Each structure stands twice: as C-alpha cells, then as structure tokens.
C-alpha cells in the first residue's frame, strides 16, 4: 500500500483558515489501512477543525465524505454535483489522490491533509515499513526477495557496505541492514553462491530518473 502520515493539525489549519466551507475528503484504500486518511481520520480532523473555528468564533461549514478511491475517475465523479458547495477540499488521500482531485476539479483548491511517505507494509499494528520505490525494473528474484533499492540506505546492489553492524544499518539503530537480510535469505534458499555474482550497473531510466512515468496497455485501453 501507499503509506501516509497525518499532517499536524496546525499545518492543516494554516492552509484552510480563510475558507468558510470546507470538505474533508477521505479515501477508503491505502490511507485507510495505514490509518492516516480513512473515514475515521476524516472524522477526527473534521472535529478538530470545528473545534478550532469555534474557538475563533468563526462559523465554518465542515463536511465529511470518504470515497472508495481518489485515484479513479468514477469515484471522484461522485462529487461532481456537490463540489461547488465547498470553497476548498482537504484531501486525506495520498499525493496521487490530491493531484487527481485537483486535475478533475480544476477551479477548486485541493489541499493535502497527509504526508505521503512510501510504498510499504504493516509490520505490526501501528508500524509501517518501506518495501518498494517503484524503480520500474524489479530485481527481487536476484536478491532473495529483499529489495536493496528501497531497503538499503545507499541502495547498494553489491552490498553490504562497511557500516553494517550486528545486522543493523549505520544510518540508525532501528534500521535493519538490507544486505544482512539478503544474505540470510540467500543462505536459507541455498543460493549463497549467487552472492558472488556482481550485479551490473542499473538502468535507472525506468525509475524517477527517467522523468514522470506512464504505463499504457493497449489491450485494455478503451
């Protein structure tokens, strides 16, 4: 999933202070799972805003809607008939949803209510960890199913570096060395001989480096 984190309420307040009719818009997908922008968080943010404006003695209309997804036309279209009831929208979707909303409702300020962090997994309740950076050319088959691009702080393809200590990365105490994990997996899979194969220089043109990316499937295109 795409993992996000709620923006501090003060930061959100600053962006909406001048508006009178605000829609807090949640998303029922990734941000719901990572508890940053689903129906529950929409309710929490809306209540906090109501309280803030009440304390300011200002009357502000604050509504709550949570869409199935904010990255699909069909769900965003559900807002077509009532979008003009609002001066702005605080989207609690990831950066994709915020932008897709902004593209669709071109004359409406769409403000982000979360910081989009990474593609990751729920490691345990309340802990989400990064697993993928979308480099566009998956090499997990060669690295024991552990990604050096997203999980090594130096994204080394022929690691580990000299900073790996007791299985931990030099960058921080709670960050596991990706190459320690890779070596453990290779051992488990009886593929340690693969370790000595030098991974060649990566083609980053499929990554962010190549510019904004697009996937086009002619066979499913309408």
């Amino acid at each position, binding site marked *: 999933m795409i993992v996000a984190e709620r923006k501090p309420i003060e930061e959100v307040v600053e962006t909406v202070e001048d508006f009178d009719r605000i829609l807090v818009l949640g998303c029922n997908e990734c941000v719901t799972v990572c508890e940053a922008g689903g129906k529950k968080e929409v309710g929490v943010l809306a209540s906090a805003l109501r309280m803030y404006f009440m304390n300011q003695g200002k009357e502000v209309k604050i509504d709550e809607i949570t869409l199935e997804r904010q990255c699909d036309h069909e769900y965003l279209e559900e807002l077509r008939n009532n979008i003009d009831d609002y001066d702005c929208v605080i989207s609690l979707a990831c950066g994709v949803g915020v932008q897709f909303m902004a593209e669709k409702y071109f004359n409406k300020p769409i403000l982000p209510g979360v910081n989009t962090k990474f593609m990751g997994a729920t490691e345990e309740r309340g802990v989400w960890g990064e697993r993928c950076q979308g480099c566009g050319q998956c090499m997990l088959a060669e690295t024991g199913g552990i990604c050096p691009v997203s999980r090594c702080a130096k994204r*080394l393809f022929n690691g580990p*570096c000299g900073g*790996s200590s007791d299985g931990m990365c030099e960058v921080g105490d709670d960050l596991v060395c990706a190459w320690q994990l890779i070596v453990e997996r290779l051992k488990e899979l009886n593929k340690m001989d693969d370790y*000595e194969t*030098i991974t060649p*220089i990566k083609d980053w043109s499929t990554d962010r480096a190549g510019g904004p990316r697009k996937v086009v499937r002619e066979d499913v295109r309408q």
Partner: protein
Amino acid sequence: MSEPVTTHTPSKLEKILAAGHLAITSECGPPRGSDPEAITKKAEMIKDHVDAINITDNQTSVTRLSSLASCIHLKLMGLEPVLQMVVRDRNRIALQSDILGAASFDINNILCLSGDHQSFGDSAQGQNVFDIDSMQLIQTVRYMRDEGKFLGGDEIKRPPNMFVGAAANPFADPFEIRVPRLAKKIAAGAEFIQTQCIYNLEKFELWLEQVRDRGLDEKIHILAGLTPFKSAGMAKYMKNRVPGMDVPDDVVKRMSGVAKEKQADEGIKICIESIQRLKETKGVKGFHIMAIEWEEMVPGIVESAGLYPRPNIE
C-alpha cells in the same frame, strides 16, 4: 625479487607492490576551506615516509575541499596521490568526468568507495546519489582504462591509466561474507585493498587466513589499515560510535591504563606493534596509516616499524 615485474599502469604504488616491497600509504583529509596549505603542509610532513597519499572524499559526509583538487596539489608537489572517490555524491556522468579530470593530471591511483551516509555529516537534509555502487565504480574505472571506453560505449581519447583500489572491512557484519565480498571486488577489477582500521588483530588474521585459503592474497595487494589512538577517549569513541569498527576491550583497557599524558605514546606504541606483527603475516603487502589530524606522527611510526627508508622506484 628476481622475477621480471609487470605493471599495468604508471602508478608508483603499483610498481612498489609489484616489486614485492611492503608499501606504505597514508591519508590526508582536506580542509574545510580553500587554503591549499592545509593540504600541502600535511603532505610535506609525511612525503618522505610514504609511497602514496590518499586524499579523502568528503569523509563522514562533512563538506570539504574536493579530493580531486587536493590530489592535484599533491601532484604539483611531485607526490603520488590516491584519489578517493565515493559514489554518494556523483552520478555516472560526474564520476567519469572527475576520473578524466584526475587522469588529465596523471593521477594514477584511485580508491573506489561507497561513502558514509549523508546523515552523519553537515548536510543531513541533502539528497544522495548512489547511481552506481562502489563495486560498480571499480568496474567503471577498469572499463575506462582497459577498454578505453565510457560506460555509454563511446571511445575515450587518452583513457585514464589508474591503479584501482577498494576498501575492505574485515570487521563489518555479516562476517561470513567478508571474504566472498573481497572476492567480488577482485572479480570487479580491484588491484589493491586498503582495510578498515585494525585493532582486533586476531579477527583480522582469521579473515586473512580465509583470504589465503581461497588464494585471494595472490590476486590482490592488501594494505592493512591502522589508525593510532590519541587518547583512551578516542578508543572508546571508535569502539562505541563508529559503525563497523571493532575495538576489543583489552585495547581500550590498555589505553585507559596509562596516565592521560602518556596515552598518545601508548596509541603510537600499539600502532607500531600492530605493524610489526602484521609485517610477518602472509598476505599483508603493506600498510595504510591513517593518522587522523595527526600526520606528524607518521614518519616516527614508519621508522620505528622498520619500514624506512622507502624504496626508490621511478
């Protein structure tokens, strides 16, 4: 050394190693400013006692005068620099470009490194690059040198002619891949190794034994890295704070066991004893003495270790 010696580059360091001498290298950290004397003065202190001088590349991710410019200063003094190059700050365009820049001054040695993560330094909020890794940088320099081509495939007019080195940390984890990792660096094209600072001699010798078991010591010149402690505090700091560093308790105890004003002498003594012990160890082809901001001690260490005068090879 009656056998004819073959070398692949004009590097003086390579010639000394190829002739079977124990080589001595040392390092100078460039200043946090643009005064060239900060480099040339350090180099003056050690130049007669070492065969080549490494110049660090923004070590610990603290911004400094560039390694390349510092190497040029050494070259202009008639000395033998080892250009340290990390892949943290430059993509493949900048790396190849700087390699050519160095080659244009006939800088004939390069040490290919990953580089400490930027979070350690003065630019923790900066981006890192890591377009290629240190293993691939070794391959890149060898490709540019041996094939005379850029990574993109185009021909290089007057290719770089560098003796290619890499680092090895026998003490980092996981220990079991430390020898395979060296094998990988050799396969990538590394010709000499400068190791992480050695304080745990037993562990280093164990690593070296495994290196010899695979015959790797015949394929690469290993220079043992040493950094003398200035104080017991430094020993404790290195033990507890520097990632990938292995300082055994008895070494810390030895440093703490002498009076404060005698600790620097003790640190130098430990360094000299280590050299004397490792001099006799098969597979050690020389020493890389990293006396951090303490370059004036290098000549004494080299002399006491019985490694002076240095061979005169041109």
